[in-house]
């Protein structure tokens, strides 16, 4: 039973078709990678699913419900969470507050009239924040200002924020971009742990093929907005059309 599916999803910017009739399914518990040369439409595809962009045509279904064109906060409330390509954090808040706000949203919905309730009284929110900070090994730095963290830690914090939303499915946009080999290694381990511990379904966009082949169950390959392969890593590796797309003059 698939958790997420898109049907003939299209996104056009003026005359340019960035996502072209993309239909694919992601099964519950699966780690799915999306790869493709630069400009293949990977980020646009994710943005169309998570609500940042409204698709021109086609539908997105999540957990049996049509979520085409919903607002980002609505998508998150339904269980779709996203970690950004750049460390999208709240720089002037503490590490703990960064995660707390996501936990708060998960516990209390997208809007509540509770502006006179003390924050300290939300035990569940604290419990979740602690657990997520622990998962990304930032619990010791909880009182630090987020801006003061090294880059790798900021990315981990970003992932913790995404996790604190208690998602069923996590979208990761190039989680190892700009990381040192050591940081990359730690992040891959983190993703594998998350998958096991939290039974997350993960959709990951990544350039690092080593990372992809290590963690992905299946790979969706895009080129110029179209799906050119949707198969296991082994099958994708042997696919002539994929090789053509990568080697055929388009830079990796």
């Amino acid at each position, binding site marked *: 039973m698939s958790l997420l599916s898109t049907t003939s999803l299209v996104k056009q910017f003026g005359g340019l078709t960035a996502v072209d009739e993309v239909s694919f399914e992601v099964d519950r518990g699966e780690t799915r990678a999306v790869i493709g040369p630069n400009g293949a439409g990977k980020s646009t595809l994710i943005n169309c699913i*998570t609500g940042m962009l409204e698709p021109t045509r086609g539908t997105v279904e999540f957990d049996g419900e049509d979520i085409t064109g919903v*607002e*980002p*906060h609505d998508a*998150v*409330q339904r269980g779709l*969470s*996203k970690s*950004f390509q750049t460390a*999208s*954090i*709240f*720089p*002037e*808040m503490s590490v703990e*507050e960064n995660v*707390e*706000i*996501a936990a*708060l*949203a*998960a516990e*209390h*919905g*997208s*809007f*509540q*009239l*509770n*502006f*006179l*309730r*003390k*924050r*300290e009284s*939300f035990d569940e929110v604290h419990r979740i924040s602690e657990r997520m900070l622990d998962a990304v090994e930032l619990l010791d730095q909880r009182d630090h200002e987020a801006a003061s963290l090294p880059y790798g830690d900021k990315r981990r914090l970003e992932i913790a*924020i995404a996790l*604190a*939303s208690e998602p069923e499915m996590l979208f990761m946009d190039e989680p190892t971009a700009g990381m040192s080999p050591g940081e990359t290694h730690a992040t891959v381990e983190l993703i594998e742990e998350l998958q096991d511990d939290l039974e997350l379904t993960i959709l990951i966009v990544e350039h690092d093929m080593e990372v992809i082949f290590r963690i992905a169950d299946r790979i969706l390959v895009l080129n110029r907005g179209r799906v050119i392969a949707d198969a296991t890593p082994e099958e994708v590796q042997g696919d002539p059309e994929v090789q053509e797309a990568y080697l055929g003059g388009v830079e990796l």
Partner: protein
Amino acid sequence: MSDDTEPDGGPVVDEATERVDGSTDDLLERILARDDLVVVGFVLSLFVFPYLLVNLLTQIGEAIGFSIGGYVGLPTLVLIFGIVVIGFNLLLGYTGLLSFGHAAFFGVSAYAAGIFTAEATAFLPTAVAHSPLAMVGVGTFAALVIAWPIGFVSIRRSGVYFAVLTLTFGQMLYYYALGPGAWLTNGDNGFSDVNVGHLLGTFELEEAILGADFLRAYTWQYVFVAVAAVFALWMANRIINSPYGLIFKALGQNEQRVSFVGLDVFRYKHMAFIISAGFAGAGGALFAIHETYIHPTTSLYWITSGDFVIMTILGGTGSLVGPVLGALIFEYVSNVISGVSLPVIGAIGSLWRFVLGAVFVVIVWVFPKGVYGGVRDVVVALTGRGDDDGGEEA
């Protein structure tokens, strides 16, 4: 600054960077950081504020030959604007939304409160219709009612377009009150039919609570406004320490992320706008009580909105009470210092606005945290946040 503090074992490294010992540092920092204590400190300072501003400064002024003392109503006026900018800061300082239209809420509330006292006697007992409490209630309510649609529309745009939209709505109300709305507001002649009754049916607001001369600035009106100011600060403090506080701060730093943790950005910004308008409304009604006269230019005109911006920035957006300090500086300078006559230069007169503008620019440029934040930084720096920092510098 800390000449009389004993070094207490900690070696004094340099006369210029003299510091107190570590334990006092921590205490000081904790006090400055604790919001609840700031509220308590605010309450305490309200007990001495009128005496210092009116009596003491007058005496000092007489001694040095300048009239630098405040007049009796000044402490009240400062607190009225203090209430407004506490709320304005929730929007500007936390959520990062710069409104150039808050005079709309201030002015509408003032008019609503004033008109209420004039008209409500028709269907309410005079004691209620002229009650200061009812005026504040009616005014604040009116402000909230118009803030809902104005916010709903303005929040859809960001940055300068948000500022222009809020300004636009404010100016529409201003020109309406000045011209076509004259049947309601008495237009350019101003609305003078403000009938302020006794507080709780007992206390005449203009009277001092006691006869003694050193208490002459302690009028019932001051007591009323001071209680309102404390309530406003307490309320703001609660809001900042509620989930809203966290979300408002987050909105100011990374709006997109807020939406991607599953929060409805639009509705929270809208709430921030309405809440902040409520504070402006409370201030506006109190202003009507204080002045017993309302004119479009002193209440609805966009310069008034600009004054709120100046006060808030002057005092500092980084803290809850900072803007109140800004209101104090602004009102003191504009009402008292502007009347001072200097030996060489002559009357300061309207020069104060020039100085204020210059100070404002310097603050935006160098002290983004405002006077309060700047003072706090200086205190922390002088007392040495950590021995390490101070040691290295020395």
